[in-house]
């Protein structure tokens, strides 16, 4: 059995009288250590999938299994614990705590995890060893995103979820960030799932799940993923 499995997962939202199906019965599997991209236009339901997998949202129906545990049956409390120990998030808008320095933002993760990695080393790993004591407002977008990656890594999670990590960055900075994610995932053998609407970015993944209108249109295994440097968008 795969590390991550989605079985007939449905997520409905009630908007007034009508019901919107953001995810309409999807099935997929992701092996441990894989670099997966979920591709689709906005409204395709890809972020919903990420949220469901990240334990931030409840599935209306269906079964979500992660590492042998059924996430779709967890209580809110155990979902929090799940997020704590299993998941690392990288957001489109970084979501750093403005009142904490870069180092402290990374240390935040350390405070709550069972088996955290050294925050200083993580920051050095993302190339911010010299900016540890700066506040988010004193950093560029790319730097902030790197802090966010360091924070996700420091938790030593099994899965790293990235929601449009380059969405707010220019392409040069985006490249640096993507390369970082990919290299680290490979070095540390992390399962990475990246959500993007950019088809070229998906080319660097081992596996691309293509979504449209809440359905999976295609799951493509990519046996020769491109290097980040080769991608142009």
């Amino acid at each position, binding site marked *: 059995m795969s590390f991550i499995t989605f079985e007939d997962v449905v997520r409905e939202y009630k908007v007034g009288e009508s019901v919107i199906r953001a995810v309409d019965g999807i099935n997929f599997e992701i092996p441990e250590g894989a670099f997966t991209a979920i591709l689709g236009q906005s409204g395709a339901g890809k972020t919903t999938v990420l*949220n469901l997998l*990240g334990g*931030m*949202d409840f599935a209306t129906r269906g079964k979500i299994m992660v590492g042998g545990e059924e996430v779709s049956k967890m209580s809110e*409390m155990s979902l*929090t*614990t*799940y*997020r*704590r*120990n299993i*998941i690392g*998030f990288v*957001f489109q*808008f970084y*979501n*750093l*705590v*403005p*009142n*904490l*320095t870069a180092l*402290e933002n990374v*240390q*935040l*993760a350390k*405070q*709550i*995890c069972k088996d955290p990695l050294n925050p200083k080393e993580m920051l050095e790993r993302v190339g911010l060893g010299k900016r540890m004591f700066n*506040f*988010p*407002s*004193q950093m560029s977008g790319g730097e902030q995103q790197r802090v966010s990656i360091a*924070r996700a890594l420091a*938790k030593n999670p099994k899965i790293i979820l990235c*929601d449009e990590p380059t969405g707010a960055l220019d392409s040069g900075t985006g490249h640096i960030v993507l390369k970082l994610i990919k290299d680290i995932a490979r070095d540390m053998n992390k399962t990475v799932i990246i959500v993007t609407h950019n088809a070229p970015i998906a080319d660097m993944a081992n596996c691309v799940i293509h979504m449209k209108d809440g359905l999976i249109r295609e799951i493509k295994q990519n046996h020769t993923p491109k290097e980040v440097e080769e991608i142009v968008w």
Partner: protein
Amino acid sequence: MVKDVLVKKSIKDIQKALPQFISIFVMAAVAVSIVVGLDSLWKTIDENAKAMYQTSRLSDLWIGIMNPTEQDIWAVNHIEGVEETEKRLSLNVQTDLKDSPTLRLYTINEETSLDRPVIREGKWEESGEAILDENFAKSHGLKLGDTLSIKVNERWLDVRIQALALSSEHIFSIKDSTTLMPDASKYGFIVVDEDKIATAYGGQKIYNQINVRFAEKYDPKAIQESIDTVLGDDLIGIMTKKDNRSIQDVEVRIEQFITLSRVFPFMFFFVTALITLSTMSRLVEDQRNQIGTLKSLGFSGKSIIWHYTSYGVYIGLLGAVVGIYIGPLVIGKVLINQLRNLYVMDSYKMYLYMPNIIMGSILIVFCTGGVAAYSCLKIQEETPASLLRNKPPKKGNHVLLESIPVIWYKMKFSHMLIARNISKNKGRMLMGIFGVMGCSGLILGALTLNNTISGISKTMYEEVYSYDHIAMLDDKTTDKDIYNLHLDGVIQHMQESGIQILAAGGERRMARITILDGGSPLLHLINMQKQPITVDKDGIVLSNKLAETLGVIQGETVKLKVIDDSYQEVVVKDITYLVSNQGIYISRELWEKMGERYKPTSVFIKWHSKDRSFLQSDYVESYEAVENQKVSFEENLKIVYLSVVLLITFGGILAFVVLYNLSILNFFERLRDLATLQVLGFYKKEIRALVLVENLVSAIVGIFAGIPLGKLITDIIIKGFGENLDLISQVSKLNVLIAGVITFIFVIIVNLVVAKKIETIEMLQSLKSVE
């Protein structure tokens, strides 16, 4: 319509931040209602008392003099500033009613125009006999046309009641120092035709007072000095309005409420302004983009400023209207009802104090509208373009604590976050501290007041006095009589009367003097250091409060007016601390050396046996048990307890409103941060702690800051008790603890409410976009 759109927007904005706007409104209404309520209280007493003084033509001072000659009166009449004089007889008389209550007798004739009784029922005619105190009549079931016996000059006189009335000199009707609460069944007044009274003196008209009324705006001090000069040795003493227990008490009570209505609401106005500031700044900050949009659409800066200002103005006005309405209704009515038992007045028509209603309303609108305008002025300076751009991310800041790495790096992150937040939102923190400080201060003040007062009747009637009964002696009873009775118990007799005392600084009072004979087994005077003191031939003892009023210190000399003689200088040997019964204490030896005669007027008795027949004997005019004195003393202070309850209530409202606002603001401002933490895997209770610990920090600082405030509040209220009560407030550790705990409970309640809000954090929405 351009305007309509903005009005709609206002309504929606207010709906969105309803709790905050409601708090502003509540605060504003409370602030105004306190001002208006407390003002209505003193204004009502003031106006109705003044109206009575005017109808009865109250004198400005009363000269004590035995049978003044025509020459005396002529001389007083010609003192500059004296407008009118009249002579009368004024003394306490016994009645033949049950428990032989005492009446203050005043004589009247056809021409009397000063200090006239205010007739409530019946009519005073030339051939008339007596006008009786209406309340006294009621409590004894006496009606118009009934006859009453009074004892004048050792003779019983029957007088017919022709009218029932009230008196300006008996609004607060207290017989003497042994009673503190008016009791209409025990003491009242009667006004009798002077011809009728003359029959008790063998047809001779006797007078012992000259009533003096001043022309407008004359210095009573200068007139008193002139009276002193012109009357010389004939003068017994001068009683001014300050020496009149009733007038003075009314005056003091008014002052007390004026002070309260000036000092007390300030905190509430201040807090209203603070809450408005934080709410409006937040709103304006939130709506940067909207303001930019409106500006770029072509709305003028003025109309945008007015748009935001109007929130404050309308809420302030609404608060003012509600405050003006409920202030007199709640605070006014409740307290006035308490006062009815204390002050007997012709009418209790409620008066409002207009200047402060207007001032208070303007002030509150300024605290809301003005502050709202201020909060959006900042943003006005920016161009529409910069407003439309997203605000640069909030700056983080280093705090002082970081310079001590040993501590800083040992701290949890949540604590670091709290430290940074506090240093960033200093204003808001300050507001929280103020709110809590106000709350704990008010509660502590209330408790301290309660303590100070509940302690005093005990000190007074268990420590200072140790008798079972105090008996007022009949005029005939002498010290030899008492000695010969061989009463079974400890006996201490003394003479009490009034005397003119003149300080070196020129300050003068008609003060109570107590002449003690021999030792003092049942009266235990102590000095300010709580050491016992004795009264002997070397000098007099002054009570602390009287000494303060006169501006006299230990070792100085003062002058006492001896009857039929000039002033005599005596040394103030000691100052004694007395809660109540302020006055002068002198030994019989010194008293007689001054040329006075000693004649006991009252006696303290601590019984050994159960035989109380002495109290019923002819030697005794009236008596009182110590327990009753204690009760009436506490009754008198009951109004204070009521203010205690009010203080605590307001303190609670204050703390609740401020902290609730603060927490909600804190919460919404950091919604995104909190959601991030939640996504990272922080448990809800950890997030709750993050928001609420800040409240706890301001609560703890505020509680401590409330200690001096509580002391201040107590002192202000105590000061208002006037010249009769000498209270020293002491903030006890227990009260600090209780006030702290109560405040803390308020804080916890607020926290529980806020914690509910935290449950509603939507992680997903907060992650989507930059604010």
